[in-house]
């Protein structure tokens, strides 16, 4: 019984992924540093990757595993674009937080 509990099943991975995803989305909402917010988005994408891999292993079909490759490529492209934008903002206004960027409103 105890051994069966210790054996990780797909459900464990899915719950872990859901938790990581929740940490990422809460982090995005409470943190104010653009770089940290961006890292939270990456955390969410990786949580989805974990979900895909866990499900693909359970189903024994390859769709989920190929999806992960595509998501990794997209995440890499997002890093390139995101860091470019964030650095160009921070260079103009060092130490800016998301709350400081409030020129556009109405």
């Amino acid at each position, binding site marked *: 019984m105890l051994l069966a509990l210790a054996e990780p099943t797909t459900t464990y991975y899915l719950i872990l992924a859901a938790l990581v995803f929740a940490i990422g989305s809460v982090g995005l909402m409470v943190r104010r540093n653009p770089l940290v917010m961006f890292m939270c988005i990456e955390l969410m994408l990786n949580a989805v990757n974990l979900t895909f891999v866990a499900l693909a292993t359970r189903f024994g079909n390859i769709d989920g595993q190929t999806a992960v490759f595509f998501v990794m490529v997209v995440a890499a492209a*997002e890093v390139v*674009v995101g860091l*470019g*934008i964030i650095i160009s903002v921070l260079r103009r206004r060092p130490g800016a937080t998301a709350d400081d960027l409030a020129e556009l409103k109405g």
Partner: protein
Amino acid sequence: MLAQDTFFTAPEIEWWHISPMLTLVGGALVLLLVGALTPRWPRGLYGLVTALTAMTAGVLAFLQWQEIDDDGPATLIDGALAFDHLTQLLTIAICAAVLLVALVTIDELDIAGKDGPEMYAMFLIAATGAVVMSSANDLIVLFLGLETLSLALYVLAASDRTPRSQESGLKYFILGGFASALFLYGIALVYGTTQSTNISEVAASFTTNVSLEGDPPLILAGLALLIVGLGFKVAAVPFHIWSPDVYQGAPNQVTAFMASVGKAAAFAAMLRVLVIALPFQRDDWRPAIWVLAVLSLVFGSLLAAVQTDVKRMLAYSSVSHAGFILVGVEAAGHDSAGEGMPSVAVYLLLYSILTVGSFAVVAIVAHSNGGDSSIGAFNGLASRRPAVAVALTVFLLAQAGVPFTTGFIAKWGVIQAAIEESSYALGIIAMLSAVIAAFMYLRIMVSAWLTDAEGDVARETVPFASAAAITAAALFTVVVGIFPEWLLHAAESVTQYAR
């Protein structure tokens, strides 16, 4: 272990059928590579190449229309892409919008003294992503198209090196990335229920495994995430918060692009995901779409009426347009073979051209006022530039849905579709909010025609390419508004989608 079971057979690739998107990618690569290797091209040539590329892609999509009539819709590349009239109609809409935006961009970059191939290449790449989204028959392919479009749009929004543009780019990036992650988790949960990401197989899995106890919770959670992700992309209330800031901060031509191509692609994705992939969950997602539609209609038009900046006004007006299109999506949720899908496709085509024209006029006025796009900048426009004021009036009347313009055809289509499916409440709310929105459009018109400018205001310069784009868009708005039968007839076949 998995790989040993089956030998990999490369899928057949239908090169002719995917030629519109190949043309767009090709144009972007030519601009980037040849543009980088050769000295600066003559003024406006980058823009002309872009416009020609978009036109070629649009014509190719048009040529394939008859083929689908003859052979029926099909899926391409082992079921990854759909080849049907919905794809073709939206491809044509996207290409037409890119064509007009490219013309406007020629002048915008010329005035700023920043002529170069980069922005045009980003437009073409974003348009490719949009075409992929509207033709995707696999949720992962759809996600890739979404990201291709979004990543290019983040860069475009931040492309002007002013603090406003950078702020808009950063806001768009953070919120867009968040929405993409939610959407992707939705795909993962749908995969968890159906064991496939292919739209054909997702839909088929519910015909073979019918559950008597209702839908499993996993698919409901996935559906919720998909709707939130798509809601962000189409800027439906309450997921619209990014759109006014981003629309106002981004350069004018980029705003025009976002409002036309971005919206068309996002709604294409919504049709593919909700109506085509998950028709068996329609009783679960339709109420959510109903709520989104009502909120977008009411808040979009109310908030638009109190804005003082015309770009922000048009941003909120695009939120209210999103509400109208959602009315059509809701109708498609009742019956995917009914009026809903054609009305959405027609709305997207007409609205794309309309909105590019509106933003082109705003760009002309803003330039002569040192970048100021507040409503005061429009004072006395009719006495300085009557032709521009007439074009502006045509676009605003059309956005308000006045008869004999394309805007009327579009709004009438979605409301009629809602009535047909007995969504009377939704139809009435849509009509009432159109009245509220009309107030805001009238405010801009009053400022242009009846209010005199304070002091001496320089006469607006109207560059040639922008003038051509505005004339074409205004003529289209009026002519198709008076003779819409051919378009409505062509759009009827959108309901025969590939899956």
